[in-house]
């Protein structure tokens, strides 16, 4: 009973949040500007959590996230805008295309370590951008237009919840532990029977497919795609969210994504200073809290469980009477 209590509490909180926001949007209480930012927060949570799976949990420093997002965004946009096929198919194609790209990029580059992997994946991201700029079928440099607007609050909400749930389930399984062991000591991991190449590539593919999902949502919210949006700066943004939240903390990524996206919304008024403030934030967090706001910890359910224990206790004693 105690085990389920926290799950029930979380579901309740999420349900209340979902309904409250939906009502807020319907009644116009949440303005269009903040609805946009809300959706962006959702997309950024998916991006940050999936990058954290690669960089934080498996310990492979990848900088290719903008590239995977672009692959997801463009491939799904081709399905809906160019071919006129239904949106659910676009979601599947976008995620699959990003996953396959992740596999193709991951197999050769994951033999590299540290800085070399970072440079190789950075190069991949730039290649995607430049290639997209030169394909007329997807609009080249001027961009791909006429993508149907499909994104609404329920879609964003459930995409985020499902993505986080999938990553959490993966991390808290034998496969997730294997990824952690690769990060901790890849030599010892091999000796304990962990196929390290398999797990590095697996984490990379899962991370890439979720970045692809973020791309699908992005494309079908803004309805216009331009290659220059998927530059290195985007990966950098996501990296800041992951670092500020804490490498290796899933809830940290959520906190990081929310903080940075909202901060960035307030900084829209002074775009010149935005990157300066970003950089300062990164330096400050590296100096004063190098492990990120949450370190490797998760926003623990212990408090909730304790609360649950107390409530359960009273409920239990009432029943006993």
């Amino acid at each position, binding site marked *: 009973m105690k085990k389920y209590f926290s799950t029930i509490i979380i579901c309740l909180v999420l349900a209340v949040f979902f309904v409250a926001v939906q009502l807020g949007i319907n009644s116009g209480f949440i303005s269009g500007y903040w609805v946009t930012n809300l959706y962006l927060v959702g997309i950024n949570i998916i991006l940050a959590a999936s990058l954290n799976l690669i960089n934080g949990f498996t310990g492979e420093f990848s900088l290719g996230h903008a590239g995977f997002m672009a692959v997801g965004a463009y491939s799904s946009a081709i399905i809906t805008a160019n071919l006129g096929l239904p949106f659910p198919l676009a979601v599947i194609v976008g995620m699959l295309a990003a996953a396959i790209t992740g596999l193709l990029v991951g197999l050769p580059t994951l033999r590299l370590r540290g800085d070399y992997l970072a440079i190789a994946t950075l190069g991949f991201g730039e290649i995607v951008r430049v290639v997209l700029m030169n394909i007329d079928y997807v609009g080249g440099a001027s961009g791909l237009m006429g993508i149907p607007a499909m994104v609404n609050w329920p879609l964003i909400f459930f995409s985020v919840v499902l993505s986080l749930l*999938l990553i959490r*389930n*993966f991390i808290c*399984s*034998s*496969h*997730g*532990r*294997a990824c*952690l*062991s690769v990060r*901790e*000591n890849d*030599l*010892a*991991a*091999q*000796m*304990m*029977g*962990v*196929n*390290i190449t398999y797990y590095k590539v*697996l984490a990379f593919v899962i991370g890439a497919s979720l970045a692809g999902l973020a791309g699908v949502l992005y494309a079908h919210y803004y309805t216009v795609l331009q290659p220059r949006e998927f530059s290195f700066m985007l990966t950098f943004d996501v990296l800041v969210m992951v670092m500020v939240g804490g490498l290796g903390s899933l809830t940290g990524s959520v906190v990081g994504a929310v903080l940075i996206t909202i901060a960035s919304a307030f900084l829209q008024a002074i775009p010149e200073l935005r990157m300066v403030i970003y950089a300062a934030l990164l330096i400050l967090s590296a100096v004063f809290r190098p492990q990120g706001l949450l370190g*490797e910890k998760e926003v623990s359910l212990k408090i909730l469980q304790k609360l649950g224990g107390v409530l359960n206790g009273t409920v239990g004693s009432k029943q006993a009477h």
Partner: protein
Amino acid sequence: MALLAVNKLTKAFGGLVALNNFVLEMEKGELVGLIGPNGAGKTTVFNLLTGLYQPTSGSIVFEGRDLRGRHPHQITKMGIARTFQNIRLFGNLSVLDNVKIAHQVVINYGLIPAFLRVPPFYRREAEIENAALELLEIFDLKKYAHEKAKNLPYGEQRRLEITRALATKPKLLLLDEPAAGMNPQETHDLLELIKWIRDEFDLTIILIEHDMSLVMNLCERVLVLDYGSLIAEGTPQEIQQNPRVIEAYLGDEEVAAWEE
């Protein structure tokens, strides 16, 4: 049939021959010591046996199967486990997780149950956890189960390395300087522990060690390496009296001085 048959095993790094024509046959249940001065090629033997290095020439046959060309994780699954000279635990993970990861060689489940949490997930997770806790209990580490491995005292970290290796259910255990950095009392306890795990877990053990009291009291057979070559093999008594071994350890002139 021998459990392990190593024949004319040679490993060269460029022009440097780290191991030259190494020969070893082991029957099930044996406890063999591997000694030699620093840089003699002892750890190279372990790295070849576990698949970290591929041999330049020669063969390694374990339970009738050739190990050449196999990946380290495949060799672990076949039943060879090791510990490291310099401790290599998963430092930021809990003691329990360290053992669980190793035990996943024996029990595991697919990706679908992991993602969707369908029944095999809970059943197998419980099996893995129980087996890991049981092992920790045996090695008196259960009280640390939820501590980070890197926070354990040195001696306990060494013991955890052995526990983790045993969690892969090996038939052949390779211990690389398990007594390094231990005081005489701890070394004595380790000696008893190694004897006990061999009988309890039905193991065959190869031990690299510089602590001669441990090697001489524990091993039935000792091999001596010097500059990559096997220079002597025999019982501890034979080895202690072998002039080539004394020469390798103490050098030529000292031997001459002793004899005078």
